[in-house]
């Protein structure tokens, strides 16, 4: 399968994460090269954050992780001790968490939280670390660094907090950045600036970026490769042009239809949406997780669904043939 790349910065094979009575991630594989942006999209609750947290080994209590491997370059992260992981986290591998408020300590100032990361990995003085922090705040468009570094998280607006998290993740020039919905709290002009900064790091420093987002505008303009998740599985994966030009899984197609398009979607008319909700996946679940909501489901969809090749490095997990849209209803 083309998903295994010999020189990948990150390679995840057959990742599974379960909670008591539910399976959150069911056999996810993906790989990411140096200088590549790989976007992960999918409905709320489909396992995107849990997959990302698995790489960092920061899963919530009660979660059980297993995989064939989770490799960072040639090192298997599965076998690493907590001390070895701690040395990588925030240094060579950084993560921007989805909820800044839960990952920031409300009792410490922005400055001391940012400086702490740098001091730990680079053994610098507080002064040097604060200078570095001020430099990165400027790069994410935050002015008055003196004032900002002295503030507590609750004194920042949602977007300032999110940019602070981004700056913090970039403190040690990571090789791999896992960004979980990093721009949801930002207006579009600041978002564009942050994305241009990440693009620059990708081009100039070879940053590998695993970008979780629900914004197809970001996917289209940032990704080289896209993985679409549904109910704990990657249901479609391919080069970005393919995903937009020839979405093959019915879920991907439904998702693309939900986007309000300025000038096309009529004000006052309901937006397109996919009726129903993501099912709760109990252990032992078989078949396509989307079948309850899929208008094209048949009895076949309740059986084990293998990954199919649509050509051009494009894969999907559905009973339908790759060209089903062109033909009459199969």
């Amino acid at each position, binding site marked *: 399968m083309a998903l295994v790349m010999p020189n990948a910065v990150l390679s995840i094979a057959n990742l599974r994460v379960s909670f008591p009575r539910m399976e959150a991630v069911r056999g996810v594989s993906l790989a990411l090269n140096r200088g590549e942006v790989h976007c992960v999209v999918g409905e709320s609750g489909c396992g995107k954050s849990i997959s990302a947290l698995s790489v960092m080994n920061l899963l919530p209590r009660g979660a059980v992780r297993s995989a064939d491997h989770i490799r960072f370059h040639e090192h298997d992260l599965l076998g690493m001790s907590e001390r070895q992981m701690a040395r990588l986290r925030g240094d060579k591998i950084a993560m921007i968490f989805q909820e800044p408020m839960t990952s920031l300590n409300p009792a410490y100032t922005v400055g001391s939280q940012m400086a702490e990361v740098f001091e730990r990995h680079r053994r610098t003085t507080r002064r040097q670390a604060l200078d570095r922090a001020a430099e990165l705040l400027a790069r994410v468009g935050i002015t008055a660094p003196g004032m900002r570094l002295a503030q507590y998280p609750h004194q920042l607006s949602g977007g300032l907090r999110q940019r602070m998290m981004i700056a913090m993740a970039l403190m040690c020039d990571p090789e791999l950045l896992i960004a979980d919905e990093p721009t949801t709290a930002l207006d579009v002009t600041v978002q564009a600036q942050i994305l241009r900064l990440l693009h620059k790091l990708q081009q100039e420093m070879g940053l590998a970026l695993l970008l979780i987002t629900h914004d197809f505008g970001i996917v289209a303009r940032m990704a080289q490769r896209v993985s679409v998740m549904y109910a704990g599985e990657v249901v479609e994966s391919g080069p970005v042009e393919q995903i937009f030009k020839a979405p093959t899984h019915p879920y991907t197609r439904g998702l693309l239809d939900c986007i309000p398009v*300025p000038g096309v979607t009529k004000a006052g008319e309901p937006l397109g949406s996919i009726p129903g909700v993501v099912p709760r996946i109990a252990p032992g679940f078989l078949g396509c997780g989307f079948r309850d909501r899929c208008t094209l489901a048949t009895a076949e969809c309740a059986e084990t669904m293998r990954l199919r090749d649509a050509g051009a490095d494009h894969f999907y997990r559905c009973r339908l043939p790759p060209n089903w849209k062109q033909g009459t209803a199969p």
Partner: protein
Amino acid sequence: MTHAIEVRNVYREFQQRSSLGRARGAVCAVDGVTFSVAAGDVLAVVGESGCGKSTLARLIMGLLPPSSGEILVDGRSLVCVDRRERARLIQPVFQDPFSSLNPRQRVRDIVGLPLASQGDLPKARQSDRVMEMLARVGISTEMAERLPGQLSGGQRQRVAIARALVLHPRIVVCDEPTSALDVSVQAQIINLLAELRRELGLTYLFISHNLAVVEHIATEVAVMYLGRIVEHAPTQDLFRQPMHPYTQALFASVLTPDPALGVPDVALGDAYPDPTNIPSGCRFHPRCPKAFSECPATEPDNIRKDGRLVECLLAVDNQTRADRGDGSVAHFQLDR
């Protein structure tokens, strides 16, 4: 005519201490804002991160007192309305359904809390009202018994909406209600909000970064920059012809899902505004791609015309043009 919301020349400052040096600065998060929203309308507030949108929302909900100025809700000054009554008039839906719901309470209790604290309905009626509201937002009786942690993000946001609507308020303040949600859930929530507005005649103040959603749901849009409203217009007019250079930059930054394009550079530069040190003249001038010699020196007035407002020196109304002797011009427009 009574407006649902009326904000009159409102200011709100936050005092700030600096780590480097001992200087104290003040951030003026809301810096002289005036607007009103007619009953049944949806006013969207958009603008740069940190420009004061959430502060404005908290002021309107009475969660924060203004430093100066006056806010009227349903024709009455907020200072004269007590907490219980305010809860019946105006309710919030916040961005983050994760932190705004008590993790240790069942869904039905969360939604019932506003009714219980009003204390004027018998218990049985309260419970009926809760279940009615939950059903209205698409939460099943079975889900009503769960804890928030056992629901998906979209379901949690539905619960937050049910809690906001259970008292049948006149006004709902939504601060980024869908930005934490994926597109299909976002569509469901936006459709629900639009439906409820039609049915219950609600007024919304709707803060969002998603301009496509704003165009879809809002009747009017206010654009904020560094504590001030720099443009305010009916939605269609604004989207057809944004006048303020900041609004234009905002629209140009929208990422349409086109993989052939990269991330645009809208030429605002990196001179981000320092809220403790507001630029002279037009506060947008250091980043404005259209700034000219007058901009650093002269503070632009509010120019009002045809139900629109814009705060930019390039915007000139007929009167000024006539004064300047450039003849009569049919439209309020940007020259240069």
